[in-house]
């Protein structure tokens, strides 16, 4: 009710060309989703409505406890709505088990240690498709593709617990990749990772986009989301308070102050220089550098 009628949100949807960039089918359709943790007596989600189209890359942001994970856990049926409706790939999750939805939605948990168990990376990569009943020869093929796609050749025979943590994180994503879901949910893919691993994950999301996958990425890493996301869903206190492209969200001082989120540093700098450059907030360093080179070379028209 409130989310759909939120004027700021309506405005944002209309004004934003990037969220309609892809004309794909509706991949995720959430309407009036409310969820209560009955035992704790806590309303974790309060009337959330959102649509995600096939091929979109969507970031979910907010502090811990704001409802991000509660929202994404509805996408593969780990949680079922207290009220409202969640449909993925046209299927209502209400009557479906997690194992059935696994064919549509690949959920990558934050900590790969919670997922991986097998005696070798290769075996672990085959676990998901085997559960889905994929024929053995196709499983072998998918495992080979995943090893190539994620660069796991060197560790394919090793025990998942014996490889480095960043590598394990990639294996965790690869183990979902072999299930070929149309929709990926990534929970904090870059948390605690160094720059190289974050860059790899960034590239990986780009390649998933090229393959036409829908990616929903829960993250505190604003630089990552600035790079990859078409839209950000901003969660606060169980409510969806903004659903706009990263550029607009970062520029919205009210939303940023309310949620205590901070934009990437380059975006912050561009926002503080905005009165002088007159340019849109930048999401990446080269972008702002280009704007500034332009502004410094030729005097801007007026001061406003």
């Amino acid at each position: 009710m409130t989310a759909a009628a939120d004027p700021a949100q309506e405005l944002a949807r209309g004004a934003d060309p990037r969220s309609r960039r892809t004309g794909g089918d509706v991949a995720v359709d959430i309407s009036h989703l409310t969820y209560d943790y009955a035992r704790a007596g806590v309303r974790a989600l309060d009337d959330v409505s959102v649509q995600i189209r096939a091929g979109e890359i969507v970031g979910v942001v907010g502090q811990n406890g704001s409802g991000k994970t509660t929202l994404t856990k509805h996408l593969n049926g780990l949680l079922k709505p207290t009220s409202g409706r969640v449909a993925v790939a046209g299927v209502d999750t209400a009557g479906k088990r997690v194992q059935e939805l696994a064919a549509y939605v690949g959920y990558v948990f934050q900590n790969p240690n919670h997922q991986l168990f097998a005696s070798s990376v290769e075996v672990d990569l085959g676990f998901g498709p085997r559960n889905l009943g994929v024929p053995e020869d196709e499983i072998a093929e998918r495992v080979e593709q995943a090893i190539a796609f994620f660069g796991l050749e060197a560790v394919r025979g090793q025990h998942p617990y014996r490889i480095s943590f960043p590598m394990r994180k990639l294996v965790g994503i690869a183990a979902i990749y072999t299930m070929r879901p149309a929709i990926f949910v990534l929970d904090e893919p870059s948390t605690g990772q160094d720059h190289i691993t974050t860059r790899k994950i960034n590239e990986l999301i780009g390649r998933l986009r090229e393959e036409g996958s829908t990616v929903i990425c829960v993250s505190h890493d604003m630089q990552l989301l600035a790079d990859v996301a078409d839209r950000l869903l901003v969660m606060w206190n169980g409510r969806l308070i903004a659903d706009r492209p990263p550029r607009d969200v970062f520029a919205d001082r009210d939303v940023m102050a309310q949620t205590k989120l901070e934009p990437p540093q380059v975006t912050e700098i561009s926002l503080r220089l905005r009165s002088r450059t007159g340019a849109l907030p930048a999401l990446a360093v080269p972008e702002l550098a280009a704007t500034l080179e332009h502004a410094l070379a030729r005097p801007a028209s007026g001061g406003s």
Partner: protein
Amino acid sequence: MQGVAVPVSMVAGNSFIHRLNPIAKLVWVLAVLVISFATRNPLFLIALSIVGLGLVTMAGIWRQFSRVMLILLPVATSLIVFQSVAPAFPQPWTPIATIGPFTIYQEGIYSGLSLLARATSMTIFALVMIMTTHPSDLFTSLSRLHVPYVLNFMLAMTLQLIPVLQREIGVVMSAQKSRGMKSTGFGAVIPSFVPVFAGAIERVQQLSISLESRAFGSSGHKTSYRQVAVRPVDWVVGIAGFAFLAVCIAVFLNTGALDMSRTLIFPPALAIVLVAAAAVLFVGFIASAIWVVIRA
């Protein structure tokens, strides 16, 4: 984002039992433990249990107490069912009734009932202690009695790890179901438990480095933050516990542990009703447990 809930934890309160020194309570728990193992007399054990329930009332913990007892009910019913057809009792057995292929033995009923009464009396006293004592007070008191610090610490850690492991199992099960794992059957065991154990090992390794960095495991003089008072009444209750134990043991030694296996005779009808009711309850519990697992 679920909180950590300890399944059997202290219930806040200020009753006489709450205020009693943990060691005095521990004496009684241990005394009841020894006594319960020393006799098979169901009447005596039932009487002991009733006294225990009196303490539950005194402590005002009925609601939380009964919730835990309910969880233990399947164990209790299984004792009666299995014992009555296959008594843990020296042969010969006296058959008193038959249901289909099963023969119910007099010794089985006696053995089942006494085992049940034994388990009940011990559990009641143990629960009263656990639910009225802050674990830290217990551990502090134990270290006063020169129970080794490390042993004490391991006990405390184990108690803490139970809810954490429960939560971890939940997360891992969710992760594996998200990978299409069927949640029942033997095939689910390794994917569900390997990550939990690996995680527990990692936790213990990192915790031990963190603790060592805080001078844990050093051999010097230690002090204690929690101060547990020892009042005269604690001495009285504690000594009374020892006295009760001594009296009971003396009585058992003189009476053959109040054996009633030959005198407490069950009429066949009563025996059948008892076993059938227990069986129905037991099967019902197992069925509902399976139902819960399948639905998950």
